[in-house]
């Protein structure tokens, strides 16, 4: 028997789940297929814990009872987890390696990427998709990208990532086909980086 949810602070999700879910799915698909491109995902309702519309819309669209969601500890057990359990009916897990989706506000110390599920030989797609909520997706240090979905090179400049983030990511994604797919979100903006996208060293 599951515990009853406290609905007193619950906020709405999608107003029209079918249409809005399909529209959001298309935006996420475009973002993941064109890595490094900046897309917009808005939501009429305010998402709890200030994680922003983009991260909220991603979870409303993609999370369901088959996708365990891991929330970085300050977020776990609060209004956001109630919102997700109500609207997505997704299981919440404290075990990062069991997570289909993980959400962290990068302001607090980033989780160790190695803790997550990197996929397995039979089902590499079961790796964790990490949603990082950042203060902004422009204005930070420039990173150049190359790989499937990018014609030549792309550039992004997200704020709020630690200096070693890109090298850690490269290392975690080094054993293709295993790795972590990333969604960088700030407000209603999103940039997706599948594990196949490579970051280029400065000056190369």
């Amino acid at each position, binding site marked *: 028997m599951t515990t009853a949810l406290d*609905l*007193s602070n*619950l*906020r*709405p*999700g999608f*107003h*029209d*789940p079918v249409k809005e879910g399909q529209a959001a799915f298309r935006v996420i698909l475009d973002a993941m297929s064109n890595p490094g491109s900046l897309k917009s995902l808005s939501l009429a309702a305010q998402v709890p814990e200030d994680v922003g519309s983009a991260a909220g819309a991603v979870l409303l669209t993609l999370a369901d009872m088959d996708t365990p969601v891991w929330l970085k500890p300050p977020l776990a057990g609060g209004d956001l987890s109630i919102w997700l359990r*109500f*609207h997505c009916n997704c299981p919440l897990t404290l075990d990062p390696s069991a997570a289909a989706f993980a959400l962290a506000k990068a302001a607090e110390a980033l989780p160790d990427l190695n803790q997550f599920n990197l996929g397995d030989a039979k089902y590499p797609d079961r790796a964790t998709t990490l949603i990082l909520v950042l203060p902004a997706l422009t204005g930070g240090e420039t990173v150049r990208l190359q790989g499937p979905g990018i014609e030549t090179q792309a550039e992004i400049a997200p704020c709020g990532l630690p200096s070693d983030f890109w090298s850690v990511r490269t290392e975690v994604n080094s054993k293709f086909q295993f790795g972590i797919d990333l969604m960088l979100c700030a407000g209603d903006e999103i940039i997706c980086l599948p594990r196949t996208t490579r970051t280029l060293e400065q000056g190369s």
Partner: protein
Amino acid sequence: MIESKLVDTRQRQEWMSILAKAQPNRVIDLLRGLNPPQAEVLRSPEIGMVMVRGRAGSDGGAFNLGEMTVTRCVVRLETGETGVGYVAGRNKQHAQAAAIIDAMLQSSDLFDRVQSKVIAPLKAEKADQMEIAALKAAATKVDFYTMVRDRQG
């Protein structure tokens, strides 16, 4: 923060059951007659299915009786009460009306009026319907008497 009525679970289950099984138009009309407060929709009415379970056999084992169409909705009143409507059938307005009524019944100010103008009439109508059905069924009852045959010799 408005004082919410401390809701007795059994009482809430009873009114939710009455709202769920009532005729959709009756619930919608009764709510309209109350001049209901504004409600923010937290979950838009959505139609789905639930598996109804039953118990049978001497050991009361559970089994799946069948799937039932259910429409659900969650609203919040300006005064803060959160109302949940789960109704039989596909009528979205019925689900929303049931949710608004559920929320109003959780408010100390509105409880008495809603109870007397919505729940009590629906409960009485349901009791009348069940009595009529029972009487009709009783009229078809056949009493079998064992025929005692004359014994030979």
